[in-house]
């Protein structure tokens, strides 16, 4: 029974007059509650702040410290008060729980201090009211995560007796632990940069030879660029194979985003090796080389910030999706309107609704 309605008990007993005349036997005698005793004020002295309440208020929850006889251990005979050497601010919300039946979590309170107070006074945190429960849970989770992060940082102490495979994996994942790992980290970073740079420079026009006009550098110095590309791809392949070997769960490693990026980055080269003789597919092969730009995403292993950007996009994917959807809706509506508005004029460029999509998109994104 909720504590608040205990004041209505006389009313509930009086309402029994309704079924008394129709009862076949006399009513049983009501239990003689000890509420005959006069209700008295109790003074709770918490570190000097005096809180006063009725005894019956505290008796509502007999399985807590204040509601049971456990509080007699804190009774001070000289001042005739119950003295608790605890934080008075946290005690305020605890006393309000007895008064209203709802436990609230004050926002400015530290979560661990609040938990300790609850445990001391014998109140389980699960009864926190709906209004404050989410905040409480969030703060608790943040605290736990922060503790876990701290623990992970302290795990830099190398545990003894790691196999070669485990050492390698640790070197890959946390490069600052050993010098070899650091060297490897910087070398791969350097080669990623080189590879991206060569891809870019390949397309720059290099100056004309005698018989042809400007050609891109890639066609002029084919051998040099090919050697550069081979070297980079070899380094990346070796790195990928080493990571695959060292991974504790190979299946999970192969499914992870970073390894897929690695594979996509080196695949065009191998496909090119296999198919470079066939003239028909060389057109498609050229297009495949555009995937070499994915090598730039390999930098995200080296940059925490890039990973955070990725997580952010992932976490607000639904909002971005909704934005896209509402834009599409607006585009379709306005394109339809434009099409039908210009339909009468013979020189209109809006020959069909999809044709007016382009106009609408360009106007809506204020490109003009």
């Amino acid at each position, binding site marked *: *029974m*909720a504590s608040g309605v205990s*004041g*209505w008990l006389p009313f509930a007993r009086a309402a029994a007059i309704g079924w008394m005349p129709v009862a076949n036997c006399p009513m049983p005698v009501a239990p003689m509650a000890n509420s005959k005793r006069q209700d008295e004020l109790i003074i709770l002295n918490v570190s000097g702040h005096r809180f006063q309440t009725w005894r019956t208020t505290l008796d509502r929850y007999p399985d807590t410290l204040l509601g049971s006889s456990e509080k007699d251990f804190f009774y001070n005979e000289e001042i005739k008060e119950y003295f608790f050497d605890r934080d008075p601010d946290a005690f305020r919300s605890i006393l309000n729980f007895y008064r209203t039946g709802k436990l609230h979590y004050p926002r400015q309170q530290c979560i661990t201090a609040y938990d300790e107070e609850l445990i001391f006074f014998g109140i389980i945190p699960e009864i926190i009211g709906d209004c404050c429960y989410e905040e409480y849970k969030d703060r608790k989770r943040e605290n736990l995560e922060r503790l876990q992060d701290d623990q992970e940082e302290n795990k830099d102490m190398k545990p003894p007796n790691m196999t070669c495979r485990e050492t390698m994996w640790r070197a890959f994942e946390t490069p600052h632990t050993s010098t070899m790992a650091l060297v490897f980290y910087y070398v791969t970073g350097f080669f990623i940069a080189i590879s991206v740079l060569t891809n870019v420079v390949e397309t720059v026009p290099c100056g004309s030879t005698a018989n042809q006009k400007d050609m891109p550098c890639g066609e002029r110095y084919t051998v040099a660029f090919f050697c550069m590309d081979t070297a980079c791809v070899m380094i990346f392949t070796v790195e990928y194979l080493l990571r695959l070997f060292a991974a504790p769960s190979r299946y999970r490693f192969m499914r992870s985003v970073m390894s897929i990026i690695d594979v996509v980055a080196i695949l065009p080269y191998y496909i090119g090796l296999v198919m470079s003789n066939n003239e028909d597919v060389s057109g498609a092969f050229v297009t495949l080389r555009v995937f070499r730009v994915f090598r730039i995403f390999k930098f995200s292993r080296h940059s925490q910030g890039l990973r955070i950007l990725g997580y952010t996009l992932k976490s607000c994917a639904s909002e971005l999706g909704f934005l896209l959807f509402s834009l599409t809706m607006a585009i379709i509506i306005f394109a339809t309107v434009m099409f039908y508005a210009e339909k009468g004029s013979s020189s209109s460029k809006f020959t069909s609704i999809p044709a007016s999509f382009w106009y609408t998109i360009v106007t809506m994104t204020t490109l003009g």
Partner: protein
Amino acid sequence: MYLFLKEKWEVEGLQTVGILLVVCSSLKLMHFLGLIDISTPDSVEDDFELSTVCHRPESMDKLQQQTKFTKKELQVLYRGFKNECPCGVVNEENFKTIYSQFFPQGDSSMYAHFLFEAFDTNNNGSVSFEDFVFGLSIILRGTINDRLNWAFNLYDLNKDGCITKEEMLDIMKSIYDMMGKYTYPTMQDDIPREHVESFFQKMDRNKDGVVTIEEFIESCKKDESIMQSMQLFDNVI
């Protein structure tokens, strides 16, 4: 469409109308979806209407004169009352919620409704502290006649001075609903009707199918167990 619209301007005019319709309906649709907000100054809703009416009871001295409670008892009653109804009046929903917390295993809403009707003496849809305390004063501190009168008032649903079998059946069913399914022995569905029959047999002296106030008081006074039960109300508070 072009078959019977010869003029060019007719075609164009119709297209313009069509476009306007599309634009207006899409704006309305977006307003409906909550994407945009089209509101004129009159249609802005007043969110800060005071939806509860508060009521302050009369002074304690007056209440003490009008009821038979002591000052301390009135204090205890008012504290309990105000705890559940901070605005000073109980409406029927609140009343039912409070009462159902005392009888969790049954459905006490009908009985609570009848009780509410009995407490709400001026029929304004809410029970103030005065109504509450007057009713309690009669039940807990009144004479036997007063109490029986009050019980008769509770049973007489249309307040016409006599209890018919249908009224009694409603009351009986609400009491059985309130007791819930956990009675021993378990109740069958026709028990309330039988109970009503035995009640009328006992109370209805002149067998005219209704029980008037005099018949009720007379029969109850002759019944030993009812008189015994009435004594219990003296010690409730």
